[in-house]
């Protein structure tokens, strides 16, 4: 009778739960039985592990092996239980000391030759391990940097089952050539660390300072970061972008092709402040589960920018999928920007599916047995042409869409979704005079980003002790009750309300945006000037 216990982590969305793996080796017919709601990939683990153990020069016990995963009611999916099961078998067989596996979380997929392969979702798994008071995690070498992001954990990076077994037996590096590396979590990694393997290819949205400088040093030919100053001739749009970045307001852009809608949206990440540690870990965890982490940079510190194509399905936007539930664009854009270009072209149910994350700040995907929650607190940017033919208006330009067609086209974006948008602006094609005149006003992203950062700090300070951090998150009722603008500040806004230009709901949005304008200007409370500016941003769309 031999029984061994090891631990690994099951992932539901971006939440991990520690799973106990029990391996029992008993007399009886030679068989390997896996119990505890495993999925197909996990069922295949039996054969993978057997091959891996044999090919690593260890002995596979030819007896009846029962492998139980508990809690049994939790559906377990994925291939990362391999390492824990293999170590469990070795421990039960008595070739690895029992004491060594205590307090260690094993997380990795085994190749048939015994190699340890990297897997997705390491960061949320390690976070769950720390929460469950496990002090050590053993992961594949490629995952080590990601695992080491979590403070208070000791990361053991191994490259093969042999290496793992050697380390557990207290003789690291005895058989396997590659050294086992141990890292303390939560400490900055030295540059060019040996663990940084991979091609180094990175998405354009993930620029860190070092790389920026490198790009500049590289001179012409290198890809420059998009800068807000390039959006010449669209002063109001630049201001709207600044306000949205500072207050987290959702933005709707309307305008003919070529007016600069996409250009503006792409430049918003350049004025967003970098993510703080908590936010960075949240974002990295989501990207880790989705498998979209750039290999060399384990921690995402830049706010993500997601621009899904308008043919995207509901599952692609809000998350889903059979088997392992994957986060969608809405979650991947958590703490960043979700840009829906050509918004009316998106399927209606896709747009409507965004209402729940916009409301709750998270996506809930329910499947039989599990409900996965993904954080999804993003800044939504909608861009639309005024008509389906996408030609500019005016007799010379050739747009022949009737007003009904135009109305119907924009009507595809449902009212409840637009209700969540605080700033709506219209962009017009820019003339020569405007381009010339605007030259003296255009500010670089760096300048604007500093103002945005200061405004966000101001808002966060004011909202301390509340569940909100950004002006856009404060509900309207609370805004009117707790944070009204200065007396008399709403004079013009009220006038506008009487004229029927703006609805009562619109007034709340104007007040909300006025707070951000005041934050940007460093004023303690919106004055009449701030409310007027906010009103201008609201009235900037023909209706």
């Amino acid at each position, binding site marked *: 009778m031999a029984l061994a216990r090891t631990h690994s982590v099951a992932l539901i969305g971006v939440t991990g739960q520690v799973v106990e793996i029990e391996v029992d080796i008993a007399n009886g017919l030679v068989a390997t039985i896996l119990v505890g709601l495993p999925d197909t990939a996990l069922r295949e683990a039996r054969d993978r592990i057997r091959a891996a153990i044999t090919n690593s020069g260890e002995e596979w016990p030819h007896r009846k092996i029962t492998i139980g995963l508990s809690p049994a009611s939790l559906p377990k999916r994925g291939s990362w239980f391999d390492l824990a099961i293999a170590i469990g078998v070795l421990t039960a067989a008595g070739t690895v000391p029992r004491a060594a596996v205590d307090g260690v979380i094993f997380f990795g997929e085994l190749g048939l030759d015994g190699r340890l392969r990297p897997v997705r979702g390491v960061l949320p798994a390690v976070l769950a391990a720390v929460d469950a008071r496990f002090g050590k995690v053993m992961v594949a070498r490629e995952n080590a940097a990601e695992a080491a992001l979590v403070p208070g954990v000791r990361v053991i990076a191994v490259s093969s089952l042999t290496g793992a077994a050697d380390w557990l037996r207290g003789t690291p590096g005895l058989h396997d050539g590659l050294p086992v590396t141990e890292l303390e979590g939560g400490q900055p990694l030295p540059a060019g660390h040996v663990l940084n393997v991979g091609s180094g290819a990175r998405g354009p949205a993930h620029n860190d300072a070092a790389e920026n400088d490198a790009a500049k040093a590289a001179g012409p030919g290198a890809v420059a970061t998009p800068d807000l100053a390039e959006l010449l001739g669209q002063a109001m749009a630049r201001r709207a972008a600044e306000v949205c970045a500072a207050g987290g307001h959702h933005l709707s852009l309307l305008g003919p092709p070529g007016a600069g809608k996409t250009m503006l949206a792409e430049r918003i990440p350049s004025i967003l402040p970098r993510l703080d540690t908590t936010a960075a870990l949240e974002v990295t965890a989501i990207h880790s589960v989705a498998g979209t982490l750039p290999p060399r940079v384990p921690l995402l510190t830049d706010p993500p920018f997601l621009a899904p194509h308008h043919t995207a399905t509901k599952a692609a936007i809000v998350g889903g999928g059979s088997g392992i539930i994957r986060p969608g664009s809405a979650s991947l854009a958590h703490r960043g920007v979700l840009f829906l270009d050509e918004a009316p072209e998106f399927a209606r149910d896709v747009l409507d599916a965004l209402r729940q994350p916009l409301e709750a700040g998270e996506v809930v995907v329910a499947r039989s047995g599990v409900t996965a929650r993904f954080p999804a607190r993003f800044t939504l940017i909608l861009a639309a042409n005024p008509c389906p033919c996408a030609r500019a208006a005016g007799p010379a330009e050739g747009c022949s869409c009737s007003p009904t067609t135009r109305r119907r086209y924009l009507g595809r974006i449902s009212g409840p979704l637009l209700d969540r948008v605080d700033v709506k602006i219209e962009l017009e094609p820019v003339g020569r005079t*405007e381009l010339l005149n605007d030259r003296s006003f255009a500010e670089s992203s760096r300048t604007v980003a500093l103002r945005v950062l200061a405004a966000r700090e101001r808002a966060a300070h004011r909202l301390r002790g509340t569940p909100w951090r950004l002006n856009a998150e404060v509900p309207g009722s609370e805004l009117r009750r707790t944070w009204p603008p200065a007396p008399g500040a709403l004079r013009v806004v009220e006038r506008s309300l009487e004229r029927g230009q703006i609805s009562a709901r619109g007034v709340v949005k104007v007040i909300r945006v006025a707070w951000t304008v005041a934050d940007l200007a460093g004023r303690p409370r919106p004055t009449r000037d701030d409310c*007027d500016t906010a009103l201008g941003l609201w009235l900037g769309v023909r209706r």
Partner: protein
Amino acid sequence: MSPASLAAELCERTLARAGLTYLAEPGDPALGALLGICEPEEILAAIKADMLPGTGPGCGDSPASRAALERALGRWRIRLPKLPSAADIAGACRDGIRLVCPEDPDWPGGLDQLGPARPYALWLRGNTDLRHSCQRSVSVVGSRAATGYGAHVAGEIAADLAERGWVVVSGGAYGIDAAAHRGALATRGITIAVLACGVDFPYPAGHAELFADIAAHGLVISEWPPGCHPARMRFLVRNRVIAALSCGTVIVEAGERSGALNTARHAAELGKPLMAVPGPVTSAQSAGCHRIIREWGASCVTRAADIIDLLSPLSATDAPAPAGAGSAGAGSAGAGSAGGRGPATLPGPGPTSPAWDPALPYDDLDADTTRVLDAFPARGGAGTSTIAVDAGVDLDTVLRCIGVLAGYGFIERGDDGWRLRRPG
């Protein structure tokens, strides 16, 4: 503070009036007449002693009125066992309940118009100044069985009124009354509920929380002493107070036989502006409103601005304007704005210019905004930066001024950016 010492503070006259509210039904013409010629202390003493107070002029002149007075005395004496002691009355005056008498500084003058039907005293819950609140007040009343339309309109009107500093008076009943109170509370305005039972007796019971809210931000008032239960007739008696307290009465929804029409009648009799909100002609719930418009000459109103215009004919439509913002009468479109605009030194479209629209509040624009307005081309649109350069102001100022100008209707959004709005 012990009830006894508090009782000592309440003067004799206040205690007497408090006592009278326990003994006589409000609106009793006999007591009203008697209070006109005798002091309340004398009357209370006389009731206790079961003898008519001293015969002054008009008091028991004829045998018939003498007999009526004696009958009234008998009526009041029935409740003598229920009359609480001075200490008990003082006890009632703790817990946020207080008494306001006609002699007090915060007695609302409007009630004096009721003559003999004037309340003997009012019981109040809440710390707001009653007299001050009633100076700019509107009663918004209507049927209990309100439709969604009625409740919506009542709430909107009350919220708008409250937002502009007007106090909303209503009866605290279900339906229109509740919508009006809630509307005013939603914009943190002051609202007054006039009940037909003790101020500590939540009727209807479902409004206990609403009354607590009203007491926190306004007043719950009643002629009946604490602990008194409502009765059918009392609502009709109470209605005259609603009409008399406020500057005008708005009936939002009332059926043909609604109690709100009783309030309307009181308002009409007092010579106060009577207003009604129209409803669908097919709606039985609005039939009463339509009738008072048709037969009683009630003004047809649809929004708060209409009501304020009616109640303040000199167009003091808004709360006092912030210091330095515009000149007198700037809030009313077209009123005196043709006299000139802004500082005289600034050039711009005068009365001869095509963009001149006498309905627009030119007087309300500051120097920067006027400059930005002048920078707009006469035809077509212009970009923000071009306007900034032409006006010689920075971009932030232009963006602010665009808000003002768009809000006032000077400019609008066109295909090619912002442009001047054509009048008409």
